[in-house]
């Protein structure tokens, strides 16, 4: 065990405890950003002026009529930006646009004494537009060759030789939809101006440091004049990683110009029509298998539907490329990536961050090809698992690859998979109008930010003279339980009861230069930093205790609020020791820091070891499909998932269940529709409410849902032997989609390959059933030869070249 992963005796980590804010949540006392509005004096409300075109040039704007509306205080336009008119980090997202880039794009913001006054003011702003042609789906953008940003390529082996030697070659295409985050709390910022014009923004943000950066560059002031605080979020899921910044900047401009606090809370329709979503993708692929069904070569071109600006599309694409292998060894690989520019919201981070999209391509390939190979899909998947010693296409050894097999075997056993498959066969033989199927799919997901620089974190731990402890760290709480885990880490590292430790909200003036709470890495990174800070304090207290106890400092033990020597004897209460230390002028607080060791990544050639470790999991899902309507039920789900030695089992199981259901929502229910007609409403999001965008509810839950955490799963490389949990289990939901495909195929002759659209709504399943029944062809898979070669970039590759890597290069070059 490493120093990082080793747990002391009786640790607070690993205990089953409720969420740290549970009491506040259930009594309605927990505060979210918008709850501060009524507690703040003299607040102005911001309302956007949203453009009714998907793509247009603004030819005239007159804000005077708005100012005539009673209660309107000010209209914010481009002329009010004191610094850089840019809401992002790529300089392609003007905060106030000259050119409307998507339907609903905010072109101005109205500040009012009431939200109603601001709304009426926004209606009164006169804007003339010169409409331009709009591309509103990824295929239109591919046809028009409208791409943006990097065109990375990941390669290994000899692709031509791989296909030449393959016994079976298949080619196909696949397009699948994105997903709306639908966090229950919409975006919200409340900005105010402190003395000397310093700005304080409370924001529903997963990335307070970047919100601070963007507010500073929009305001044209240094970062030390901006403080951002996030109390908590009502869900984030990636949707508040990059998207909050512009809203915070608008509130900051408003507060600066009026001297009054400005509240910018998006209503649900605004949130849906203005903020980015999960990227939908288009994939062209060809794949080669040997005679026994082992993958020999994969050639694919992935096109992400990026929306109007880059936002996080480049790193999302990079992660998609890095996860197209999912759990499977493929010796010869070539995957190209590109980002379509479309006139839609700027698509962004969403739980999994491209990983799910890359993996979905592979699982779709295997699901479609298994019948063509004459193999059971379950057998095809299991046969191609990575084995110890093998590496990913980007060159990272797959550590603990055997855990996939362990998870798989456990699910097979506890899920009674063989017995149920026999039952299913009997059921299908005796039920002419419905079919059941069971599918199992694995997950392998890389943990760490792809970009090495982001894998750092800070924490601030204060021990007060009475022994009470206050911790702050750089991560944000969005329900995932990060704060609970950090309290457990601090209590464990200090050897005090949980009740001794309190946690203060995330603020940029407490811990600077933080990374987003994203990439599932919140607990790994911030936990490392909290632990480091606590250990500095304990080391100092160790000296004080050793002189009292008369033992060597290394023989002092801190546990459950008492300090003793390793052999027992005298017991010093924690509070007494702290108090004594204070009078000896011992520093009782510490700033902690953590950086993940051993990572390296070169995005220009898509090669390296960007991940600290991989998270594994396996799910088995059983469905029943009605042949008349395509309607289906999820009968049973069994999951075994690897979270290392869990820091907090109750929270981790909750994350697994929630992620799985959210993944199932993406793959089966949630159907984003944009108006693709040529009417003036072209590009308008048609599903802009909970009534038209179907979210998972109780009715779609598995009738039986068994979740187990993999045992004996210690992870050397992370805090107290744990593993990340936020994103990986989302992809366990592939099992549902593949079960639906198999159930649909079971309406046709044995061994038929069917296409299944994503999301696999009942309508999509109905069409898959219809395809199976026709039985005239094997879906849309081309067979033979060396396959259909996917589009290769005609221009030079444009490698991703992130700023932080440039900085590193510049530093090494002595610039």
């Amino acid at each position, binding site marked *: 065990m490493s120093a990082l992963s080793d747990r002391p005796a009786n640790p607070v980590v690993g205990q089953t405890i409720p969420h740290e804010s549970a009491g506040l949540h259930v009594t309605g006392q927990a505060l979210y950003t918008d709850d501060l509005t*009524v507690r703040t004096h003299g607040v102005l409300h911001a309302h956007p002026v949203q453009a009714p075109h998907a793509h247009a040039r603004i030819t005239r704007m007159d804000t005077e009529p708005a100012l005539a509306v009673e209660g309107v205080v000010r209209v914010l336009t481009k002329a009010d930006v004191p610094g850089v008119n840019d809401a992002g980090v790529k300089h392609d997202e003007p905060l106030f646009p000259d050119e409307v880039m998507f339907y609903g794009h905010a072109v101005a913001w109205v500040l009012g004494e009431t939200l109603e006054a601001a709304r009426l003011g926004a209606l009164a702003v006169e804007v003339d537009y010169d409409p331009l042609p709009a591309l509103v789906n990824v295929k239109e953008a591919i046809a028009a060759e409208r791409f943006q940003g990097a065109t990375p390529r990941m390669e290994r082996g000899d692709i031509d030789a791989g296909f030449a030697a393959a016994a079976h070659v298949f080619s196909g295409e696949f397009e699948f939809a994105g997903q709306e985050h639908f966090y229950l709390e919409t975006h919200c910022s409340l900005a105010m101006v402190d003395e000397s014009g310093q700005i304080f923004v409370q924001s529903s943000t997963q990335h307070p440091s970047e919100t601070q950066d963007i507010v500073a560059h929009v305001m044209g002031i240094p970062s030390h004049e901006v403080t951002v605080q996030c109390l908590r979020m009502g869900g984030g899921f990636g949707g508040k990683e990059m998207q909050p910044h512009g809203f915070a900047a608008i509130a900051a401009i408003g507060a600066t110009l009026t001297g009054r606090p400005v509240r910018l809370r998006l209503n649900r329709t605004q949130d849906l029509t203005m903020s980015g979503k999960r990227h939908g993708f288009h994939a062209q692929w060809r794949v080669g298998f040997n005679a026994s069904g082992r993958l020999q070569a994969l050639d694919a071109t992935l096109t992400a539907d990026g929306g109007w600006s880059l936002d996080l599309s480049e790193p999302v694409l990079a992660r998609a490329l890095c996860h197209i292998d999912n759990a499977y060894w493929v010796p010869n690989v070539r995957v190209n990536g590109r980002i379509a520019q479309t006139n839609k919201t700027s698509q962004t981070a969403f739980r999994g961050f491209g990983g799910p999209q890359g993996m979905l391509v592979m699982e779709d390939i295997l699901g479609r090809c298994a019948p063509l190979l004459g193999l059971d899909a379950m057998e095809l998947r299991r046969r191609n698992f990575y084995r110890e010693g093998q590496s990913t296409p980007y060159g990272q050894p797959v550590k603990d690859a055997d855990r996939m097999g362990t998870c798989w075997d456990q699910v097979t056993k506890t899920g009674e998979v063989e017995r149920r498959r026999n039952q299913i066969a009997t059921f299908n033989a005796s039920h002419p109008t419905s079919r059941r199927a069971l599918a199992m799919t694995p997950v392998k997901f890389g943990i760490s930010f792809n970009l090495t620089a982001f894998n750092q974190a800070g924490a601030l731990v204060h021990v007060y003279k009475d022994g009470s402890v206050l911790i702050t760290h750089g991560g944000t709480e969005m329900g*995932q339980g990060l704060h609970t885990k950090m309290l457990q880490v601090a209590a464990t590292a200090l050897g005090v009861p949980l009740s001794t430790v309190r946690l203060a909200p995330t603020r940029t003036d407490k811990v600077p230069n933080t990374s987003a709470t994203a990439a599932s890495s919140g607990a790994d990174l911030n936990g490392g930093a909290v632990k480091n800070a606590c250990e500095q304090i304990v080391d100092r207290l160790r000296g004080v205790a050793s002189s009292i106890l008369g033992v060597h400092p290394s023989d002092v033990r801190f546990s459950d609020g008492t300090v003793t020597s390793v052999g027992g004897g005298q017991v010093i209460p924690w509070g007494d020791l702290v108090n004594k230390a204070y009078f000896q002028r011992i520093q009782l607080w510490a700033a902690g820091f953590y950086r993940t060791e051993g990572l390296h990544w070169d995005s220009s050639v898509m090669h390296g070891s960007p991940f600290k470790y991989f998270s594994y999991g396996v799910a088995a899902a059983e469905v029943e499909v009605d042949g008349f309507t395509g309607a289906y039920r999820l009968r049973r789900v069994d999951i075994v998932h690897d979270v290392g030695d869990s820091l907090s089992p109750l*929270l981790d199981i909750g*994350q697994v269940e929630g992620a799985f259901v959210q993944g199932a929502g993406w793959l089966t229910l949630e159907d984003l529709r944009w108006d693709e007609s040529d009417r003036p409403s072209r590009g308008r999001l048609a599903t802009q409410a909970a*009534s038209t965008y179907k979210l998972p509810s109780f009715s779609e839950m598995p009738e039986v849902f068994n979740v187990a955490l993999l045992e004996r799963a210690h992870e050397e490389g992370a805090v107290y032997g744990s593993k990340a949990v936020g994103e990986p289990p989302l992809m366990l939901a592939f099992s549902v989609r593949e079960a639906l495909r198999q159930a649909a195929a079971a309406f046709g002759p044995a061994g038929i390959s069917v296409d299944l659209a994503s999301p696999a709504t009942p309508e999509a399943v109905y069409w898959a059933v219809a395809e199976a029944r026709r039985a005239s062809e094997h879906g849309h898979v081309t067979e033979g030869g060396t396959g259909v070669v996917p589009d290769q970039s005609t221009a030079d590759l444009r490698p991703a070249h992130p700023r932080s890597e440039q900085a590193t290069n510049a530093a090494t070059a002595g610039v």
Partner: protein
Amino acid sequence: MTGPDVPEPLHEVTVSVNGVRHTATVPARRLLSDFLRHDLALTGTHVGCEHGVCGACTILVDGAPMRSCLMFAVQARAHELTTVEGLGTIDAMGPVQQAFSECHGLQCGFCTPGFITTITAYLEENPDPTAEEARDAISGNLCRCTGYQNIVKSVLRAAEIRASADLGAPPLIDADARAGEAPP
């Protein structure tokens, strides 16, 4: 429609919330959810989808669960309202609150108040639900975080806590009031 030049007429609204009388002067179109949050500063009631689908804003009107985003404040006149704040405190939680806390029936917590109010009313009617009934009872509320498993557990646990404790508090649903005066 009230145009910019015609000031919207205001109405004095007096309601009883959690046993306390409140009076505020608001436009006729003020939603009850906004009234609670912004006029009365009772921010425990959350606004999620804003059109009656998600159930986050559910409160009890004369003991019956209602979506406060689908009611106007003026419609709440003369009714007894109960919000999540009225169902217990951290030191003295109601049974549903205690169950959600114990069973981890929440993550981000934003949907939680709507579940607490809905289930509190439900258990008044059906104090001993089966798991199937529990799922049915809350099928009209959305949660984006939990995957619902622990929410079902929380309902069943709340029924247990309720059954095992003589809470000594008057029932939230006043049967006479509900029979005689249907909420809007």
